[in-house]
């Protein structure tokens, strides 16, 4: 018996823009329905429409029934009785989702009191119980804390506690873990599962992360341009997608368990809801498009087995058992010349030795005084050989961004050395520093913030050229635009006329203007949708090989790193925990932190994802102002917990440094970990194609 039934839901915003165009689904008790889609696909608007929480101007039509009672068009006070009682919602960004001026406990108690006739004390007690249920330590003390005193993961737990306060029948989770680090995401997903067990509620899980859906959902709905294009049981949909968009999406995601090599990109961009193509909305990007596709929009039709597909060629796809890799042309990336030379004989383009960066921790508004030291970067060493990509990974606060800033400054560091292309940053003259800046360029995460919106793209790219006194700028700009897959005519346009992926291409073109040898990539694809991301990753790979570049790649997405990087350095609290060749670190991680990190990443593969055992970490990382003695990871280390008293002493008293592992073998015996009891284990189940080999 289904709890919620949505039929032909459409949402029209003022100005006639249809954000949602006919969505139907139902959710039963205890069932998890995953809704996936890229930004602008209408997935979040759909859920807000169900809750009746859209801004006043939006017109909603269709039908939403909860236990058979219609919710569209009813009085506001009837809706308020449903909201938070029968249907609860968990929002994406837990920082802004709590009112900053009330305590967490008070806000949860408020949710209790809206729907239940209980006294203040009772509600407060219930809030504490709920916080305990979602795994918040010292719940009675924490209930009196304000939202800003909670970490991101804790806030999201509290959000879940609030959502289940009235034992709802349905939980709508809108990107519940998108803003969180992977190890925290794993914890929160676990809490969500607990919450579901406690309440027996149905869950609508909205996300862009196909890995999260694979592990949670029973059924999946794929949205594109405001409409569902495919729907079905999770295994069926993941293993046998029948609609080219779903196929492309599944083939385009980089995977931690995946092989190297180019990713499948989906060309083009999702259509704007104001200017939809006449036929199938995916037609302009579809590799299987035929003429009938442009005639009318294919309806979502049942194809048996509880599946629905909106594609004229779905039968054919089924018969021929086509997959994304079959229908999407795989780009050919020329191999790099540099890698044929063994690493030892290549030049070193960047070398860090014991880099340290401490910040004073200040307190007080008028009279500032120093109360401590933030150990942002605390002795980091690594090197990058020519033609190599080193990825620096870690969760927020691990010091990867600070490390990058220290390199980009080209100033003498507080302690240690930064050697760029053989030149020590501590011994640079003014002119040398300027010249070196041309060889060391950066690509930022948010392409829009990095581009001046009032400058035509041609000028944006030409700026570094002019600053370095180059002539013949126009020709070079045209050349650069072609290099990154844009056309020379684009030079006249302004940044806001481009899509996110194109803007990132512009950012890359600008960084390449001075023909750098080392490019620093600061989360270059994390703001982009998956289908766009693949194209940028391929472009970066290609540029590296054809131009002989080296990359320092800073990222938190370990799946992207596996695809792009040759070597990876995992950071924790300002130090390197593990470093080595990608295949060594991913397949045989030796540091307990790397193991937890890798095991926390959801795989877009339902069967294996369900079968996986996660290494869950406890709590949040300690503050870098007060790192634990000895090994910094010991407060959360699952291995430490299992050690004997005598062995533990070493972790507490002696800070481990990166040691080359004895059994690092293979083509590249390049693998080291900073753990006294390092032990290689496998945490990512080998994928099928790897097993076959």
């Amino acid at each position: 018996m289904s709890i919620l039934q949505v039929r032909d839901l459409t949402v029209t915003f003022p100005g006639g823009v249809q954000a949602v165009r006919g969505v139907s689904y139902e959710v039963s008790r205890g069932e998890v329905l995953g809704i996936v889609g890229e930004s602008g696909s209408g997935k979040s608007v759909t859920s807000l429409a169900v809750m009746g929480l859209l801004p006043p101007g939006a017109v909603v039509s269709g039908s939403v029934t909860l236990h058979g009672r219609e919710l569209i068009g009813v009085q506001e006070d009837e809706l308020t009785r449903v909201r938070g009682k029968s249907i609860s919602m968990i929002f994406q960004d837990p920082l802004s989702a709590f009112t900053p001026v009330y305590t967490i406990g008070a806000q949860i108690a408020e949710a209790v009191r809206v729907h239940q006739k209980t006294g203040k004390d009772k509600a407060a007690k219930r809030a504490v119980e709920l916080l305990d249920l979602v795994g918040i330590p010292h719940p009675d003390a924490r209930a009196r804390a304000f939202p800003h005193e909670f970490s991101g993961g804790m806030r999201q737990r509290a959000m879940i506690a609030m959502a289940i306060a009235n034992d709802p029948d349905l939980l709508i989770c809108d990107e519940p873990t998108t803003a969180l680090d992977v190890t925290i995401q794993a914890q929160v997903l676990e809490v969500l599962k607990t919450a579901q067990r406690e309440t027996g509620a149905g869950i609508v899980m909205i996300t862009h992360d196909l890995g999260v859906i694979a592990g949670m959902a029973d059924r999946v709905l794929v949205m594109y341009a405001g409409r569902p294009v495919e729907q079905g049981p999770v295994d069926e949909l993941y293993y046998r997608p029948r609609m080219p968009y779903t196929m492309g999406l599944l083939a385009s995601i980089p995977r931690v368990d995946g092989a190297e090599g180019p990713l499948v990109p989906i060309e083009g961009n999702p259509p704007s809801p104001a200017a939809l193509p006449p036929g199938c909305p995916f037609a302009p990007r579809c590799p299987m498009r035929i003429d009938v596709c442009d005639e009318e929009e294919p309806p979502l039709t049942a194809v048996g087995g509880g599946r629905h597909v909106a594609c004229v060629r779905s039968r054919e796809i089924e018969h021929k058992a086509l997959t994304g890799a079959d229908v999407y042309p795989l780009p050919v990336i020329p191999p790099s010349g540099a890698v044929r030379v063994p690493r030892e004989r290549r030049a070193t383009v960047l070398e860090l030795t014991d880099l340290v960066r401490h910040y004073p921790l200040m307190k007080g508004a008028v009279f500032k005084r120093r109360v401590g030291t933030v150990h942002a970067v605390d002795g980091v060493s690594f090197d990058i050989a020519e033609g190599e990509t080193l990825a620096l990974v870690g969760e927020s606060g691990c010091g990867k961004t600070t490390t990058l800033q220290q390199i980009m400054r080209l100033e003498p560091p507080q302690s240690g050395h930064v050697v760029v292309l053989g030149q020590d940053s501590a011994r640079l003259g003014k002119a040398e520093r300027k010249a070196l800046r041309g060889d060391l360029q950066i690509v930022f995460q948010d392409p829009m913030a990095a581009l001046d919106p009032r400058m035509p793209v041609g000028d944006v790219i030409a700026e570094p050229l002019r600053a370095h006194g180059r002539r013949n700028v126009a020709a070079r700009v045209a050349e650069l635009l072609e290099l990154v897959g844009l056309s020379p005519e684009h030079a006249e346009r302004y940044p806001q006329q481009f899509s996110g992926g194109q803007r990132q291409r512009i950012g890359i073109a600008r960084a390449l203007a001075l023909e750098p040898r080392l490019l620093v990539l600061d989360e270059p694809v994390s703001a982009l949708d998956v289908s766009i991301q693949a194209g940028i990753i391929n472009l970066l790979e290609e540029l590296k090989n054809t131009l002989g570049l080296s990359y320092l790649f800073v990222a938190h997405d370990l799946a992207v790193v596996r695809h792009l990087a040759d070597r990876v350095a995992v950071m924790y609290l300002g130090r390197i925990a593990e470093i080595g060749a990608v295949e060594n670190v991913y397949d045989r991680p030796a540091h307990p932190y790397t193991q937890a990190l890798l095991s926390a990443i959801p795989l877009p593969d339902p069967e294996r994802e369900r079968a996986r055992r996660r290494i869950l970490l406890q709590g949040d990382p300690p503050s870098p102002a007060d790192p634990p003695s000895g090994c910094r990871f010991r407060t959360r280390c699952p291995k430490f917990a299992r050690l004997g008293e005598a062995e533990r002493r070493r972790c507490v008293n002696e800070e481990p440094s990166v040691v080359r592992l004895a059994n690092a073998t293979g083509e590249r015996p390049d693998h080291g970990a900073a753990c006294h009891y390092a032990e290689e284990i496998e945490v990512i189940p080998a994928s099928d194609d790897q097993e076959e080999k």
Partner: protein
Amino acid sequence: MGKYLLRRLAMNVILIAVAASLAYMLAATTMNPRAAYQGRRPPVPETVIDATLDTYNLNDKTPLLQRYTTWAAGVATGDFGRTWNGGSVNDEMGRRIGVSLRLLFVGTLVGFALGVALGALSAVKQYRPSDRVIGVASFTIMAIPVFVLATLLAVATYSMNRALGFTLIEYTGEYNPRLTGWDQWLNRLNHLVLPTISLSLGAIAFYSRIQRNMMLDVLNQDFVRTAMAKGLPRRTALVKHALRTALIPSATYFAFAFGTLLTGATFTEKIFAWHGMGAWLIDSINQNDVNAVAAVSLFAAACVLAAAFLSDLLVAALDPRVRVS
């Protein structure tokens, strides 16, 4: 927190001293109390003038620094000196301070409360007619100088009373001395109406603009949506979550708005014939009354800093994020 506030308080006392000293220096160097005696018929002998001015500590023949020291020593013990004709500044101030504070207090309160309410309403009804009316009205009011506004109000009330045939709203003075008891009290209230309106209109307009912006910022935030998602009615979510949070930035403008209000009070008092500190400032400048000017300046400085202090307290009370650090 307590220690921090104490430090703030000490700082404020120093600031008041500096402000008042500067005001005294300026008044003492530019004003000429002697003129009031010199022009007399029959002429007063110079020595007599000197002696009189000496007793009031107003003699320009005494070095400035020496006069200042005498004045400052007096102020430190609570004696603000003599007026140009020998009256006690303390007595005069005692009479007038209450009058001004009554006006300022009510004006601030009414201005803040109404301004915040109108601003919040305006934000919730963004682009609807009510928002536009409030917007146009507040900009018009802010564009009109207080003395014009006050005069217009007085004229309008006068004609209204004429048309009605009896005095519905008093438009001049503080009270009617012929009344006693309850009537007197009501009469005082009635006299307060017009000056309060004139004084608070500007503040209302100012706060309504500020509050509208703050509220608009907050309205689109996720926590308002969360509040509604847990089942609170829209109105409760708006007042309890949105407005409550949007009050914080408005409270920081409190001190600033109070400064404007103080200036407004000077004109308002004068136009409605209230014998307050503001009116006294104008009178004493005309009469070259150095000590009175210094006293009024000190009062103004104390008021502004008290407002700033209050606004800090208000922010700390409203915002837990400030309190903790």
